[in-house]
């Protein structure tokens, strides 16, 4: 299954993908569009990606984390396109026999995705629009 989607995320599908009868817990993380950033109002976000590379990068991260947490089953999907406040932009499901590994693996997954996967967001609000992270650095 691809890691990127243009459609609303259904977190139940993700959980169903990872849960096994030997699992005692799952952690479901969702990143959600909020109505503010750096003191500015946000109404919507446009997510852009270098799709084939982003698929590869997320796949490599999933592979890494699976190697570190062999008992954890992982699923992740990132939404692209135009999202409004309250929409989920990413969902991660991590299932494990015990909760500690599920928490740790899901946390590592979102942190790693934010570091290297070529996905960008343009925030739109009453003050205009801006690509996050571009101003003043490169």
């Amino acid at each position: 299954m691809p890691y990127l989607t243009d459609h609303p995320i259904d977190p139940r599908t993700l959980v169903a993908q990872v849960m096994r009868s030997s699992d005692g817990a799952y952690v479901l993380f969702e990143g959600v569009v909020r109505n503010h950033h750096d003191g500015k109002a946000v109404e919507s976000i446009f997510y852009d990606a270098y799709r084939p590379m982003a698929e590869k990068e997320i796949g490599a991260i999933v592979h890494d984390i699976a190697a570190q947490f062999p008992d954890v089953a992982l699923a992740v999907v990132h939404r692209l396109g135009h999202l409004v406040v309250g929409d989920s932009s990413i969902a991660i499901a991590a299932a494990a026999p015990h909760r500690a590994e599920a928490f740790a693996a899901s946390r590592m997954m979102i942190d790693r995705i934010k570091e290297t996967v070529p996905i960008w967001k343009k925030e739109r609000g009453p003050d205009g629009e801006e690509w996050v992270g571009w101003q003043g650095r490169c």
Partner: protein
Amino acid sequence: MKVRLLFFAVLRDIAGVDARELVLSEGTTARDVWQSLRGEFAKLADYVQPPMIAVNEAYAEPSTVLRDGDELAFIPPVAGG
């Protein structure tokens, strides 16, 4: 040789296109291409150092020498999640 240059996010807005074909001389590096973009687009002039670079869908160093048929992309600061 020919290299396909892809533009994403803020760089697509600045360039006004998704991609362009470059005809380059042998030995051209990814950094060389960035320097030419700085000369072409005033909004990039201050960015002496290139952003992250991808060649053929994998991160690469600015010093990477491009080859015929390569796909090059400059990766502005990522903001997924």
